[in-house]
């Protein structure tokens, strides 16, 4: 009971303090638009083909955007030690942070997806789409929390580190070059990005075709989530007192 209560309170705290700030919401809503202009315009790709990758990219960036910063912010502000003095442990803090990022990612992505569904009059496979969004936002938010675990106290350092990890994951994930056209090392690398599996699931949900079995996509996202949480827990525990 205390476990779930702690998660709920931490999620609420994060949403209230870090996610519901006007600049964060505005940036969250505008960011997909920036991505759209940056990666779609002038490339001569059909919008319906670009859309699954675009949605995946939006969900990835929004779910993993604030998570890397929460722990450094709290350590810098002196609230982290206070937080740990409540009846919580590091697992509760990690899950609470992940769920807050997940909710934010879903909230922003709903606008993008709604736009897409209206624009394309799409016959979307909702049964596949909803678990895809839930699972992937959890997975990407876990990555965000993992990125907050190194003992870097300065948020600017964390942002740099976070960008160093997140941007390459986008480029190897088959968003810009369809998965079928990837060859050799690029194709192998694509399997190491969780975004690849979400792009595939979105392609399946919107267009009814996939390159990987959807069940394998779901399994891969589950595995990535477990991996991110396990590593995150280990590093957060190791660096718990650093920077306080």
């Amino acid at each position: 009971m205390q476990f779930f209560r702690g998660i709920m309170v931490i999620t609420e705290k994060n949403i209230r303090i870090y996610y519901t700030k006007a600049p964060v919401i505005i940036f969250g809503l505008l960011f997909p638009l920036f991505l759209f202009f940056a990666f779609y315009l002038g490339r001569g790709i059909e919008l319906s083909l670009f859309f699954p990758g675009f949605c995946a990219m939006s969900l990835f960036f929004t779910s993993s955007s604030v998570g890397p910063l929460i722990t450094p912010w709290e350590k810098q502000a002196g609230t982290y030690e206070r937080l740990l003095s409540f009846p919580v442990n590091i697992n509760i803090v990690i899950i609470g942070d992940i769920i807050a990022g997940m909710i934010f990612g879903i909230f922003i992505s709903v606008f993008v997806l709604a736009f897409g569904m209206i624009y394309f009059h799409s016959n979307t496979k909702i049964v596949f789409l909803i678990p895809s969004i839930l699972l992937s936002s959890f997975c990407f938010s876990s990555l965000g929390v993992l990125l907050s675990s190194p003992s870097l106290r300065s948020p600017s350092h964390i942002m740099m580190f976070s960008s160093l990890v997140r941007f390459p994951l986008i480029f190897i994930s088959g968003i810009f070059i369809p998965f079928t056209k990837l060859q050799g090392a690029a194709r192998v690398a694509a399997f190491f990005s969780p975004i690849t599996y979400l792009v595939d699931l979105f392609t399946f949900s919107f267009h009814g075709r996939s390159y990987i079995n959807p069940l394998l996509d779901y399994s891969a996202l589950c595995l990535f989530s477990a991996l991110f949480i396990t590593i995150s827990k280990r590093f957060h525990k190791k660096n718990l007192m650093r920077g306080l």
Partner: protein
Amino acid sequence: MRLVRIRDIIGIINMQTNDKYVIIARELTKRFGALTAVNRISFSVKKGEIFGFLGPNGAGKTTTIRMLTGLLVPNSGDVLINGIHIKTHPIRAKKNMGVIPEMGNIYVDLTARQNIVLAGKFYGIPKRELERRTASILKQLGLEDRMNDPVKTFSRGMKQRVNIASALVHDPQILFLDEPTSGLDVQSQRLIKHFIQEMKRQGTTVFLTTHNIEDANQLCERIAIIHQGELVTIDRPERLRKTFDTTQSVEVSFDSIIDISKIKKIDPINRIEKRGDKWKLYTENPDKLVKNVVRVAQEKDFTILSMEICRASLEDAFVKLTDSKRHA
């Protein structure tokens, strides 16, 4: 080896069955690489007691409080909070305590009320009860007029009061305070000290770390002195002071600047310290020294502005204890 283990187990059973003590630390050790921050310290805190943990900066006070509150895992040793092992049941143990960390802060974007409600939610206090307690504690700490203002607009003293309120909202049996008055103005210090005494009256056990000897002297029933990670002594402040009462002093100030060589000649002085515009003359016979100071002043035509006999203070005891440890 086996004997040691059996002895440890018996010790833990004894500790668990002792209702009188709510905090029991046994052989606590914490190392950070090659540095031993806390070395095999043991003590126990009685129910309803204000226990001071005194030491100079870097002595190991914060490391100890972090081990007691479950933030740091000791390399060896045990901590029992109300009979609960903090190492194996940290969440259960934490429910019994309120913690005000030294560098601990509150969420400055939230209001005072929101901070306290947030803290209360961690303990599962029902909504209506939480609202009632929040209002009551804000009133007690003189924050009711500003309860809906963001904490970022508060002074440091007010922030510390919100910090204390957040740690007390669940009505803990044990309150851990790490340097609670450090860096605060006199009014805030007084209010917080008064509040600590009020907590004691209500039966809360208070564990207070400080390097402020006067705070410890005023508030604590027993104090432990830690130095370089080791426990030097545990005793009542008055008894500690009396241990060092053999060396007394006479504090005297003159209306003009006096050369130290003239004072040195006065009998019987063991040691002289200049403190601002006063001279502190250590002696074993203060009555004789007072007479001699008056006589010398008359002879040399000095005017004495003030003069008083000082007994050894807790500060003297502290300095002596930590100094002897350093020299040892």
